[in-house]
């Protein structure tokens, strides 16, 4: 199994995680994905990539470093993103009852191993 798929498998094993993707941050394109049926990975990659890019510009404008972890909370779940090196971003979709702490730890560890 490739390092990318290993990373995705680890993240999707966390309770409450509905899927995960490895995306190219600049292009907003899917590199690898492991998603439940009915989830449009292409749309998530495009929008999450844009979000990370804009957050990066905002933090750079404020004289800060690029965020190491992003948590976007919605009414029915959350989007988690962990930017890594080489423009890769690990993204996870989680439900409201997900173990966010464990998901965060797994994502940061997984994206670190990809570098």
């Amino acid at each position, binding site marked *: 199994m490739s390092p990318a798929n290993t990373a995705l498998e680890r993240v999707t094993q966390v309770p409450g995680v509905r899927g995960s993707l490895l995306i190219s941050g600049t292009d907003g394109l899917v590199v690898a994905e492991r998603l439940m049926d009915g989830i449009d990975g292409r*749309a998530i990659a*495009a929008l999450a990539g844009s979000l990370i*890019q804009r957050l990066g510009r905002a933090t750079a404008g404020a004289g800060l470093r690029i965020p190491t972890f992003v948590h976007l909370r919605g009414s029915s779940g959350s989007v988690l993103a962990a930017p890594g090196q080489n423009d890769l971003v690990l993204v996870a979709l989680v439900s409201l009852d997900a173990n966010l702490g464990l998901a965060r730890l797994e994502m940061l560890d997984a994206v670190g191993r990809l570098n």
Partner: protein
Amino acid sequence: MRALEPWVVEPLQTFLAESSARLILLMTTAGQVVAQHGFARSFEVMTAAALGSAIVASTEELARLMGAPRFGAVVHGGSQQSCLLAAFGTPRGRWIGLVVFGPETSVGLVQLFFDQMVEELVGAAPREPAPAPMLAENFERELNASLKELFGR
């Protein structure tokens, strides 16, 4: 925004607002311009339409030679400007979209909203048959009328 067919304006405006693309040109596979946004001169539009339709024709022929289905889109990536070229079916025939975008957006976003625009165009297209092909003796007059409509002069 200039369009020969008024029903294309709203999907195009939505696409431009959502994708942050700089330029868009909609044309038929024959290179006839349907709508444009961002081009300053008619010469640029006609050149881009001719080149765009030729590239799509080339890639579709390449796909045919390879025994593959049509390519979904052609993307030319650049450091300051990129270009997406994609053909799609409409009730008015096969059209081509040429989109130029910069680093303020991404190819993923442009493709995502381009596909949504295509769905909206297909849904908004009138079902009556397209106008008959132009006769050769009317070609220059029709071309000038189209350019006047697209550039307002």
